[in-house]
């Protein structure tokens, strides 16, 4: 089945099964490798991206649901060569260790800050339920607060 997708502001056409996970379309058909395959069970959050600004686990999201919606992946965060505040904060706080899960955390953070611009630690703990096997949670928490500051200073 042919479908049109809007990803990071660009138009794509794909011809695949309508139930194909969006993650596999993005990675294997469109070669956008920033979004990671982790568990394939919507549990770890490595595959998190945004659909119409909402965080979704793309390994468990049929591609047909994404038609007519705006998809944002980690590749689409920066604009005009300018780092997104979340990217900048991640660099300042030297968050990643192995780095594999980080795109998913960063996209979940963007969704969080869209809804709660100045989150508390509790907001962070409850709204970001991704998994990091390196245990970088505390650095991520600092980076999320830093990203909230950067967002405010950008306004």
């Amino acid at each position: 089945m042919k479908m049109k997708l809007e990803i990071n502001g660009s138009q794509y056409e794909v011809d695949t099964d309508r139930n194909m996970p969006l993650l596999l379309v993005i990675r294997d058909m469109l070669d956008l490798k920033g979004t990671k395959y982790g568990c394939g069970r919507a549990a770890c959050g490595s595959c998190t991206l945004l659909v119409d600004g909402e965080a979704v686990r793309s390994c468990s999201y049929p591609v047909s649901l994404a038609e007519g919606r705006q998809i944002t992946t980690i590749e689409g965060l920066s604009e005009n060569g300018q780092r997104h505040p979340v990217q900048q904060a991640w660099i300042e706080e030297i968050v990643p260790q192995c780095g594999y899960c980080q795109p998913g955390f960063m996209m979940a953070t963007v969704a969080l800050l869209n809804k709660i611009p100045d989150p508390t630690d509790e907001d962070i703990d409850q709204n970001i339920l991704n998994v990091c096997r390196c245990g970088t949670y505390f650095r991520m928490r600092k980076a999320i607060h830093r990203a909230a500051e950067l967002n405010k200073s950008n306004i």
Partner: protein
Amino acid sequence: MRSITISNSILISAPILVLIVLYAFTFQEMEGHPAEKPQQEEMTPEEAFEVMMQVLTHKRCINCHPDGDRPLQGEDSHFHHLGVVRGPDGHGLPAYQCNSCHQDRNNNFSGVPGAPHWHLAPKSMAWEGLSPGEIAHSMTDPERNGGRTIEEVEHHLTADPLVMWAFEPGLDQEGKPREKPPVERGDYILAVKRWVASGAVIPE
């Protein structure tokens, strides 16, 4: 001459064959679907209540009617993994909604269940730990059921796709079919309608 004889035989035998097939089909239908309407009429309100409650007390329903802020999941009704909570409206938290993972259909690739408007029942409709009678009182009480009339309760119980999901719960993360309630969907719907039509009396 021979071909004419064959054609005549076909002409004569064809209607008979059609009649036999039609008779067999009708008979099979009667055998295969044992007279649903008479069954509904024959069911007493108490029997209808019992059939309905076999479904409503099943884990496929109770897991989303928890007595607390965390959804339950699985055949053993454990707390939902990863600290998932109900949030202010039963749809999860602002940046981590139920539909971050649960879409409008089952996903048998990932084992994540789904149905339209996937969410938890409100706390006022917590059924976990309640008896069938207590569940019935909660769902017929407008103070607790969101102001629904009994007709609206019947519609929710028999036509809401999220409720009907219980009968098509898909595969779990190990690729095994999730357990369905012990009553067939059609029998359950008939039982609910029969119970409501008879006055929605809750047995003591």
